[in-house]
């Protein structure tokens, strides 16, 4: 029987970090280690369609609703993390 606890006993922050990175990794077809530098400016795949999809995916994963200013401010992996923190998400 598999254990009911996670193997690595992640902290909430590590768990959120993993969820966040996984969303980016899947969207941009890369691995979680390579996502930290992704930004709207440097990533051609990050167009407006992708942008709205990312917002929707993050809103669902973290149960938040992005304010319009934050939708516009979210222009990189790092910026997104800061925004989530401002909504009280440990990440």
């Amino acid at each position, binding site marked *: 029987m598999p254990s009911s606890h996670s193997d690595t006993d992640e902290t909430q922050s590590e768990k959120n970090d993993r969820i966040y990175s996984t969303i980016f990794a899947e969207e941009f077809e890369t691995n979680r280690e390579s996502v930290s530098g992704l930004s709207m400016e440097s990533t051609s*795949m990050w167009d407006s*369609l992708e942008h*709205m999809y990312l917002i929707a995916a993050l809103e669902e994963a973290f149960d938040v609703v992005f304010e*319009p200013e934050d939708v*516009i401010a979210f222009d990189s992996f790092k910026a997104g993390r800061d925004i989530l923190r401002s909504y009280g998400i440990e990440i």
Partner: protein
Amino acid sequence: MASLSDIALIDPENGIMHYQGLITFCDEFTAKVKHSCKQSRPLVFALCSNTIGGIAGYVASVHAHIVVALLSDDIGIEQFNDLVTAYVPDLIWAPKHRTDIIGNEIRAFEAFGYVLINTHLDSSMPLHNDLALLMTTSGSTGSPKFVRQSYANLRSNTKSIISYLDIDEHERAITSLPLEYVYGLSVVNSHLQAGASLVLTEDGVCQKEFWNLIHRYGVTSMAGVPYTYELLYRLRIDRMDLPSLTTFTQAGGHLAPMLQTFYGTYAQHTGRRFFIMYGQAEATARMAYLPPDACLDKIGSMGVAIPGGRFELIDDEKKRIDKNDTEGELIYYGENVCMGYAICRADLQKADENKGVLHTGDEAMRDADGFYRIVGRKKRFIKLCGKRVSLESVDDMLRARFPDVDCVSGGDDTQLVIFVASPCNTSLMKHSLAELLRMNKKLITIHCVASIPRNEAGKIRYSALKAFLDDQGCCS
């Protein structure tokens, strides 16, 4: 009245150009063209961008009375070379970073990050004297087809647009659409002709800088395709503080009824104007508009013919339909109907083939008040994010890349759908198409079906495909 000292173009990267500066640039450009080119009416390929270089290059070409073909500044080199082979341009106006296009050619002229080069290709084929502009309709599907627009087309449509949008010299539009699309170009033409001004940006509504510019320069209007207005809805535009932005226009496809209601209400409550419009490159840009006061009463309608234009509906026997609420093909009459198409240089000699009559290829109905609504399309194309995607071209791509797969393309203005009736690597197909068509994979769905509907003669029954879209089926 506008004066030469008024601002024409505001480019955050390159500065401000007043009307006098634009005229001076046009004169200089014309002189350089004459100097470097032996033809009196050469053809120039201009790569577009919403920058001073991109816009001034277009304006100067028309001013110099040389024929200009507008292409995207990120056009693929193979597609570009195919167009060069087909049309044998005499000149190219390209941004400096396109070293793949500019090569080692001597630069006849350089300005605002752009370069003018002479191709030294020998085409002795003359261009028709009325011909002004060549616009693509097929985007990245690779077809070399251009729409031939005349000086009269441009003058007439620009004048009409200024009239119904009521554009005066106090207006300031932001370039929210690409210049190489007729809608984006019409914003530039109408504002410059009216002596108004333009704020130039390549950024979109999801970017901070777009909104910074609107605030900093007091932008009064923006244009968008249905997708833009979906984005703005999600950005909660009705809660944004936008004191200067009072006019919104929409074209490039059908706006969902929910959004028409949303924007009609927003405009009414805030004293703004929201214009739904209809057009195509074959009509220069615009054929119809919905007066803002009628927006909420006429959900689903794209309005009435523009000043100087006229609509008719015809039935399958090509007879005019006089009854209301009856479906027929929408025919448009006006001075803005293009001269015809071109697929090679020789076609540029042709005169006006349409003579002011355009079979739009759309099926429509007219109500008792004379307002029209589009109910279907005769030609096989969809409009994704405002861009035309030919389903015939997609089928060609599928045949070439996946010859063993029984499939056909379809879909609507929100999604390209590939119906597949034999085993295939759906993920590879989606990836290939996304790359070939230069579109986001999210716009493509692969729908597995038992078989592709065909008639006794073996021809695909395209209308039957629509029924599959309602099925659950297996989609990826």
